[in-house]
Every structure is written in structure tokens, then in C-alpha cells.
């Protein structure tokens, strides 16, 4: 049985989560290995959340927010973007491949885009193989 990565996704309530719901209501199909956490705004996603996710054994973390300029809270998604760029550097220092963390803009009407995104990300992450963070943590502790 081939390896299925686990992706943890933080979706903002107004655009991305609605988009993901739309994928559902329009019965679009995508791979089942994504786990969604709903936050009011991508701006709420803290660095610690992402790190926690890797620590708990996520093979990849996806953050989705409204398109630039469409944020329900004006600029939460920009805040998120900054934090994301910082995180990218940081996880690389930790030896986590940058492809394992992604930030994407998904609007409420983009159910199909969300579905495609998940499929495509799963593929890339599957190529990278399982994320070792959890194991190493367990061994050193």
C-alpha cells in the first residue's frame, strides 16, 4: 500500500472554508488525507500552530485565506503572508522541506481550485516521503 501523507489545513472561515464547503456541495472529489481546522481569519494562524502540527506528525501544513484585498477583516491575510515567509525560513533551518508548508488564496467561489490544490499538494508531499519531525522528537525526548 503506497504512502499517503497527512496534510493539516488551516482555512479562514469566510473564503477558504466556504470554498471547501462549495467543493462539497458541488460534489467535486479530492484525496481524503487532508484535515481541516477552521479559523475566523488566516491572520489567526500562529507560528506555533504550524510547528505544533509538524510536531504532532503532519507531513505538510496548508494555510488558506482570502485573495489579497478580499480579506473579510481587511488585511488579516497580509499578516498571515508575512508570518508565512518567516516560517518558511524557520522550518528550513529545522530541516523541514519548504514544500511541506504552503500558503494559498482560495475564495468562496473556488471550490474546484481547492479540490485541485489538495490533490496536487498531496502528490508533491508524497514524493518527499513522511515527515520525520515527530519521530525525531520522540527519540530525543
Amino acid at each position, binding site marked *: 500500500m503506497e504512502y499517503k501523507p497527512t496534510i493539516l489545513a488551516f482555512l479562514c472561515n469566510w473564503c477558504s472554508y466556504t470554498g471547501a464547503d*462549495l467543493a462539497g*456541495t*458541488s*460534489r467535486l472529489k479530492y484525496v481524503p488525507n487532508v484535515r481541516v481546522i477552521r479559523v475566523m481569519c488566516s491572520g489567526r494562524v500562529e507560528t506555533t500552530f504550524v510547528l505544533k502540527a509538524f510536531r504532532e506528525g503532519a507531513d505538510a501544513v496548508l494555510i488558506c485565506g482570502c485573495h489579497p484585498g478580499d480579506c473579510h477583516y481587511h488585511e488579516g491575510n497580509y499578516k498571515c503572508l508575512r508570518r508565512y515567509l518567516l516560517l518558511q525560513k524557520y522550518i528550513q533551518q529545522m530541516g523541514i522541506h519548504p514544500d511541506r508548508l504552503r500558503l494559498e488564496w482560495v475564495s468562496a467561489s473556488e471550490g474546484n481550485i481547492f479540490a485541485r490544490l489538495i490533490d496536487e499538494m498531496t502528490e508533491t508531499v508524497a514524493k518527499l516521503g513522511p515527515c520525520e519531525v515527530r519521530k525525531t522528537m520522540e527519540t530525543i525526548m
Partner: protein
Amino acid sequence: MSGEKFCGIYLYHIGNGNSDGVNTRELRTYAESLPGVGFVWDSREYPVMDAARLLTDIRKNNIQKVILAGNSPGFAKSFFTKVMLSAGNKAKDVSLVSFSEFNVLGREDISRAKALILCAVKDVPFEMVAVPEEVPVHPDTLVIGGGIAGIQAALELADAGNKVFLLEKSGTIGGHMAMFDKTFPTLDCAACILTPKMVEVGQHVNIELITCSELKSVSGQAGNFRVKILKKARYVSLSTCIGCGTCSTKCPVKVPSEFDAGTTMRKAIFIPFPQAVPNKYLIDPVNCTYIRDQKCGVCAKVCPVEGCINYEENDEEIEIQVGNIIVATGFRLFDARRDDRFGYGKFPSVLTSLEFERLVNAGGPTGGEIRQPVVDKKGNRVFTLDGKEPQRLALIHCIGSRDVNFNRYCSRVCCMYSLKLAHLVREKLPEAEVYEYFIDMRAFGKGYEEFYRRIQHEGVHIIRGRTAKVEEKNGRLLLRTEDILNDDLIEQEVDMVILAAGLEAREDARELGKMLGIATGEEGWFLEANSNTDPVNTYSGGISIAGVCQGPKDIPDTVAQASAAAARVIQSIITGKTRASLSEVSLESIEVNIRQYQ
């Protein structure tokens, strides 16, 4: 001020349709009597529009302004503007008096017709001077019809903190929308979005639900109606029934279920559908053998609640007092039997759209499996899982709509729901071929065109050309259609045909209209106060209309109208006053107002 301009009036004798009744001779003499009117043309003396002759008349009587009065004189406007311009006047010196715009329907409205002409001559907007007197308003409201329109209107009012009586003919609220499987174009299931609202209505402290009831009579006037309601006996106590369903399981009588559009059988003691509100059982006296002829009586025996079922219960008549009435009685589906070419009622596998909605619905006869109906020994059509899975299905648009032999109007929703049904078939039977035969694809709403595209790409065969007849050929159904865009004749064999039947006014609409004093159009839809600026109110004060009973509509438009109808009511409750019937405004009062206005 241009009111002083010297007027010529062109009176149309024959308006298209219903204002023939207006006596043009009388109007003519009235118009001629008005000061500032120089000339009155009577269309009967001008059978053909003769520009030259009109021009000479205009010049001779140096007319500076022409008023076109008729049912819908707009059809001649640009002709007159040209004439006026060549007579050296301006285009805006042609003004219209459209009788139908102001509900001038016949003799009885002649004084309004006069008033309209007077206003035009004086160049005063009719709405500004034809104001009914204000009357105090009773804070309670009656909403007739428990469909989505009625539900929305009721909630709107109740949330504003007012008492609402919601009158429903059947045993539950929900109307047609509750019967649908999914809703276009978002495809979320109708029940999922409707039932919460139904529950809300059921629980709302301000809403008094009156099911199984009919309007008996309405007296009084705007602001204070006395309404008599005939409450049919349920024979099951609303207060004590726990909805356990034992009675129904034991009941021996089986009749076609209204909610499932006849695709399933229900008992004589039944609950319309699982999420019904109120979620209580009731007996249908027509089919219950005990009530008909004192036989059986099982349900009462098995009912766990003492005295919950009471065969002796009688219809009762209640009277309520309300200040406003909102009519939201909806529609009935076109009876596909009337167009016998499609073999509905003759071939079991020819379904109406509503039947199919139930068939694909998880709560339907086959639990959402699409199967051809089978015919049992008695010759009845039965929907079961034993039926064959259809390999080919066809949807035929415009059944009973856009057709002079039945209804001329477009039913507005059929195109979209047909696309939706096509999608549902593809989703449940990916192997099945779906053919859709249409005339014009009317995907006009928000996200509709996108949905249309999507269905096209899903591999549904969407063919321009309305099927002419359905015949039976070696066990399958044979459709004969011209494929217009490919200039070809298609004789398609299919296993199941779905007829996109149109919407029709309810059989009792006219009667109800009379009772409430609201006019109905030729097709039986209720007439709004003004087709542009006031689509939800009527000429009889205190009474509004909402939803399909005013004309075919999809769900969002219906909901919008329902809320809109509530607006006037809330307004009247806030101010404590409402306006009496526009139809009762006298010519004299208008004349007075005009004098003050200028």
C-alpha cells in the same frame, strides 16, 4: 409650468386584453370637458396611424402636448414622438397614461381612468395625489400559505416582534420546496436549508401555526380584517401526539402520498414527511375507513397516548382579527396529462419533474436510487428497487409552458431545474446517458449560466429542439425531435422521460382573489399594485402578495418578495397606521389633492 400646456389626447379603444371593458365614449366626453384639452382622438376613428392627419390636427389645434391613454399605449409612443417633433414640439411632450399600469381593468375602474387622464393633463404624478386615507392598524398579521414564501414572510414579521397567524391548507408547512431534492445552482439539498426555517417557525413564540385550514371569509377593511378560518379536523391531538408512528404502521389503508407526488403510498393516518412541522400525525378523513364507515379503528387502539386520536373531532370555524394579510399561496404543477403527446399517465416511465425530484431524493420511494417504475397486478405504477436502472433518460422542457394550446407564459424555473435533474442523474448513474430537449435555455440568475456550462461539460446531451411526441417501441420510449442546430431528425429510444412541467396558478386562486378583493390576471396570477415599482402590494389596502402566486419565480426571488411584502406590514405596525384601498380613492378627492399640489 408645463401643466398649462394645451393637450391633445389619443384614446385607445382596444387595449391588449382586459381593459376593453372601459367605456371609451364616456372617457372621451370627460376628457373633452377638461380645461386645457384641445383635441381628443378616438382610436376607433383612427384605425390606421396616419401621421399626416395627426400632424394637421396637432397644428390646427396648436397642441403642445399629447397624452396617449389606453391599456398600454407605450407601443405607439415613439410614433407620436416623431409626429410631435415634426410639429415643432419636444419628445417629452408625449406622456403616457397606461391603464393597466394602474389596475384599470374594467367598467368599475372608470373613475380611476378619468383621474389618470386628469393627472396627465395637469402634469401631476398620479401616485402623489391618489393617496388613500390612513386608518389605524391592528398589530397582528395573517399569512396565507406555508410555503417558503409564507415561512419567510412569517419569520420576518415575527422576528420584528409581531404576532403572525400562518395559515396552511395541508398538514405541514414547507410547500413545494420541501419536496425538492436539491436546489439549483448551488446544489445544496432543499431540506437541509429549509427545515431549519420550518423548525424556527414551529418554535417561534410570535407565530401561531394553523395547519389543515382554509380561509372561509374576510370582512372589514385595511388595518382591521375579521377573518373566518375553517379548521379541518386532524383527529389526532396536536398537543398530546408524540409522533411515535405506531398508529401509522398499523393502519391498513394505503393511498398515494401527496408529499412524494404519488411515488410512494402513505397510510390514512400519517405524517406528511419526517421533518414535517408540526411533527404530528393526522388522519385523512376521505380515506380513513373508520371515519368513512365506522370500520377498523385500529390506530386508536394501538395509540399509546390516552385519547390522542379522536374520531369524533369536528371541523371548527375560528375567527381572528388581523391588520394586514400576506398572500403566499404559491402554485400547482401543470397537469402533464393535458398534453397527451408525451404519454404521461399512459407510459409508466414518463414522470413529471416533481415525481422525479422525489425519486432521486434519499427520502423517496427507492431511497434515492433511480429506478424505472414497475406496474403491479392492479395496473398501478409502483416505484421500487425491483425496477430496472434506466440506461437512457430524456428531459423535455416547456411542458405546458410557452405554448398557445396551454399556457403562453414562461414558467421561469423549468430550464434550471431540468439542468439540475440532469446533473443528479449523471451523479447517481454515471453510466447513464441523459438527453435534454429545450427551446431556449433560460439560465438567467446568479450563477445559473455557469451552472449551465458545467452541466454541458458533464456530458449531458443538451439538444435544441422540443420533442413533439413520445411513443412506446419494443418496451422503450421513443422520442421524436428535430435537432435544430444540426438540422437533423432524432428518433431517440430512452428508458425514462422526465417532463419539465410548468407552473400554474392554483385552481382556487380566482376565488381567493375575489374573497380578498385582489385582481387576478388572465392566467390566474395575482395582480400587483404596480408591475415595476410595487410588485408585492395590491390595490386592496392591507393586503400584500408574495412568491409564485404573483407569477412564476425561483426560490431567491420568492424569498426576496416575501421579505419585501413584510416590509409594508412592519412599516404599518411601527407607525400604527396603514393606507386604505387604492381602489376606493374617489375622483373628487384626487381633484382636491391636485389643486393643493399645484
